[in-house]
C-alpha cells in the first residue's frame, strides 16, 4: 500500500516503519499483506469485492488481487460460513466477512456446529484456518442488529478463538497474526473505532512485549486496573486521564484476546494494583466480565482489596441510537465503578 513511500523515507532518514493511519486503513493494509504473502488466503462476503465492504475494510483489494481472491457472495451468512468450511477443507485460508455482528446469528449453526468442530471431528486432519471478520459492538447509532457484542457467545464455544483490537496498531498486528493461524479465529472489529487514527509500527509486532496472544498494559497505574477490550479500551484510557486529576492512578489492561484470556497478565496487573474493574459493552449477565472477575479472583484472592466490579451494558436488547449512550458504559459509569472498588469496606 505504501511501500514506495516507505522506501523513499527510508532512503532519506533510515528505516521508517511508523505511519499514522486509521483502523480502517490498518485493517485494509493487513489484509492486503496477508493476500500478498499467502496465495491460499481468500477474502469474501457481502459487498466486500467491488464496493470494498460497507466499512471499506476491503477497499481496493479486489482490484489489486483479482476477483478469484476477493469476491462477493450471495447474501446469506450461513452460506458464507459453510462455504468457508469447505474451502478450508480444500486447503484454502478463508477470511470471510459477516457484514454486521447481528448477522452472525443466521450463521451460528455453521460457526458452532461446523467451523468450530471440524478439526476435532476430523481428528486434526481437517484444520479450519478461518479468520471470520465481524464488525462488532455499538456506538455508531446503527439500525437494529447492526450493533451487538457477541464475544461471550463466541468465547463459550469450544474450538473457537476470539480477538478484538483496540487501536490501529493492534488492528494491523492482530489481524495479520490471526489470519495466519491454523484454527478458527473470530476477529471482532470495534466499528466505532474504524475512523480513529493512530500510529502503526508495521515493523514491530509487539513493542510493549508479551506474546501475540497476550494481553497488553496500555497505561501503567498503581491504584486499580481497568480491564477492557475493543472500543472500551479507548474509553478506559480517557477515564484514567480524568481519574488522574483526582489523584487516582489507573492501570488500563487491553485484554486483546477474549479466548484464550491471558490470565497471567491479569494476575500481574491486579496483584500490583489490588483492585479491578472490568468494562464491556455486552450485557452483564453471563458476560465475559464474569469470566475475567473469576480469573482475577483465582489469581489474586489473597491480595484483593475489594471484589472485582463490572461496568457493562444492560440485560436488554441493544437499544436504538437515542439510548445508545445510556447503554454503553460511559465515563461517569466507569468512574462510579472505580469509586465502588476504592471505597469498598469489608463488612
Amino acid at each position, binding site marked *: 500500500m505504501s511501500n514506495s513511500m516507505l522506501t523513499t523515507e527510508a532512503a532519506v532518514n533510515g528505516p521508517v516503519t511508523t505511519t499514522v493511519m486509521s483502523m480502517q486503513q490498518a485493517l485494509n493494509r493487513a489484509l492486503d499483506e496477508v493476500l500478498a504473502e499467502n496465495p491460499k488466503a481468500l477474502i469474501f462476503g457481502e459487498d466486500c469485492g467491488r464496493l470494498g465492504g460497507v466499512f471499506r475494510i476491503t477497499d481496493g483489494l479486489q482490484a489489486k488481487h483479482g476477483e478469484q481472491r476477493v469476491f462477493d457472495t450471495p447474501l*446469506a451468512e*450461513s452460506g458464507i*460460513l459453510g462455504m468457508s*468450511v*469447505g*474451502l478450508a477443507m*480444500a486447503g484454502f485460508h478463508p477470511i470471510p466477512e459477516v457484514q454486521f455482528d447481528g448477522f452472525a446469528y443466521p450463521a451460528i449453526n*455453521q460457526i458452532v456446529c461446523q467451523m468450530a468442530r471440524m478439526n476435532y471431528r476430523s481428528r*486434526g486432519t481437517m484444520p479450519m484456518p478461518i479468520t471470520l471478520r465481524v464488525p462488532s459492538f455499538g456506538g455508531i447509532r446503527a439500525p437494529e442488529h447492526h450493533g451487538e457484542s457477541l464475544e461471550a457467545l463466541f468465547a463459550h464455544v469450544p474450538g473457537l478463538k476470539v480477538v478484538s483490537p483496540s487501536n490501529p496498531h493492534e488492528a494491523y498486528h492482530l489481524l495479520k497474526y490471526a489470519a495466519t*493461524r491454523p484454527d478458527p479465529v473470530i476477529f471482532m472489529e470495534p466499528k466505532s473505532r474504524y475512523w480513529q487514527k493512530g500510529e502503526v509500527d508495521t515493523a514491530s509486532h509487539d513493542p510493549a512485549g508479551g506474546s501475540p496472544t497476550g494481553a497488553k498494559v496500555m497505561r501503567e497505574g498503581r491504584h486499580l486496573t481497568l480491564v477492557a477490550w475493543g472500543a472500551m479500551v479507548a474509553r478506559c484510557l480517557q477515564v484514567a486521564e480524568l481519574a488522574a486529576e483526582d489523584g487516582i492512578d489507573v492501570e488500563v489492561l487491553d485484554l486483546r484476546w477474549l479466548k484464550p484470556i491471558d490470565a497471567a497478565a491479569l494476575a500481574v496487573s491486579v496483584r500490583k494494583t489490588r483492585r479491578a474493574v472490568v468494562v464491556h459493552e455486552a450485557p452483564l449477565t453471563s458476560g465475559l466480565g464474569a469470566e475475567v472477575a473469576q480469573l482475577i479472583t483465582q489469581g489474586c484472592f489473597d491480595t484483593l482489596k475489594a471484589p472485582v466490579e463490572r461496568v457493562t451494558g444492560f440485560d436488554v436488547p441493544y437499544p436504538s441510537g437515542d439510548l445508545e449512550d445510556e447503554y454503553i458504559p460511559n465515563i461517569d459509569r466507569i468512574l462510579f465503578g472505580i469509586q465502588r472498588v476504592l471505597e469498598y469496606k469489608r463488612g
Partner: protein
Amino acid sequence: MDTLPVAAGDAADPLTPAQLRELYSLMVAVRHLDASAIAWQRQGIIPGYAPELGQEAAQVGSGYAVDTTRDFVFPTYREMGVARTMGVDMVAYMATHKASWHGGLYDPVKSRLAPIQAVVAGSVLHAVGWAHGQTLAGAADGKLGVALTYFGDGASSQGDVHEALNFAAVMKAPVVFFVQNNGWAISVPTERQVAGGSVAARAAGYGMPALQIDGDDVVAVVEATRRAFAHARAGNGPVLIEAMTYRRGPHSTSDDPGRYRSLDEERDGAGADPLERFRQRLLAEGIADEAFFAEALAAAKAEEELIRTGIQGLDSRPGTEMFDLVFQETTPVLQGQATNWREESEHV
C-alpha cells in the same frame, strides 16, 4: 425429470458385465453389513445405528461414480453404503456408531469422505466451498474434482440446502447434489415435507439441471451420477439428482416406525427390493448365476465378521484426545484442564 444435457465420452459408456457383478457384490456387502449393524446394536456391541435398508442401489450406484483420486464426498450419517463403495476402512467408519469418535475414525482426507455429519444439510454448504476451491485451483487436465454431497428429503427443508444450491449455481461450482428421497424424515412423509412436488423440481429455480431417477435401480443411479459428474467436471456447474427410494427400516435403532406407518403402507411404498430386482436382471441377462450370488453373499459374511471383530476390538479412546484435538494450536486454559483431568482421573 431429466434436464441434464446428455454427456458424451466415458459417462455414456455402458457398464461392463464385470462392473455389473461388482455392483451386485457391493450391494450384497452393504445389505449384509447394514442388517448386521442392527443386530450388533441389539447385542450391545454398538449403542446405535442409522440403517439404510432399501437404499443400497442409491448409495452404491452413486458412490461408484466417484473418482477418489480427485473427487470428495460429503455424507450425513446414513451413507454407509457410499463409504463401503468408496473403499473406506469400515471398522473406522463404524467406530462412529460404536461411539468411539464423532465423525468416525477413518482419515477423511485420505479416504476422500468427509467426517460423518449429524446435522442434516450441515455439509451441503461445505461441498460448495470445497468445489469452489477446485475451480479456484484449476485442474491441469481441465477436469475438475467434483464434490458429491448427500442429503435427504427432510434436509431439503433446511435453509442451508437452498443457500448451497444458490451459491453453487451462482459460482458454477462443480457439485453434485445427491438427494436420497427415501420417503421419510423420521416420521414425516415426503408429502408433508417437500413443497413443490419434488426436490428435483426446485433445481429449475436455480437454473440448475436436475435428474429425478429410480433410486432403486442401481444401473440407472450409476448412469445418472456419471452424467452429473461429467457435467460438473467439465466446468459446467452443479447438478441435482433426486433418487427416489424408500427407507424400509426405522430412522435409527431407537426409532419405532410402527407409530407412524403400517406394514401395509411400508410394503406399498417400498415397492420391489432393489437387491432382488438387480439379481433378477443379472440372471435374466445371463450376467451372473446362482453360484456367483452365493459367492457374493459368502464374501459379505466373511467381511462382516472381520468388521465385527474389529469393532469389538476397539478400545475406548484415550481421554487426552479430547483435549489434544480441539485446536491445531492449543490454549493455556485447555492445557490446564487437560493437566487437571489427568491428575484427578489418576487419583480416582
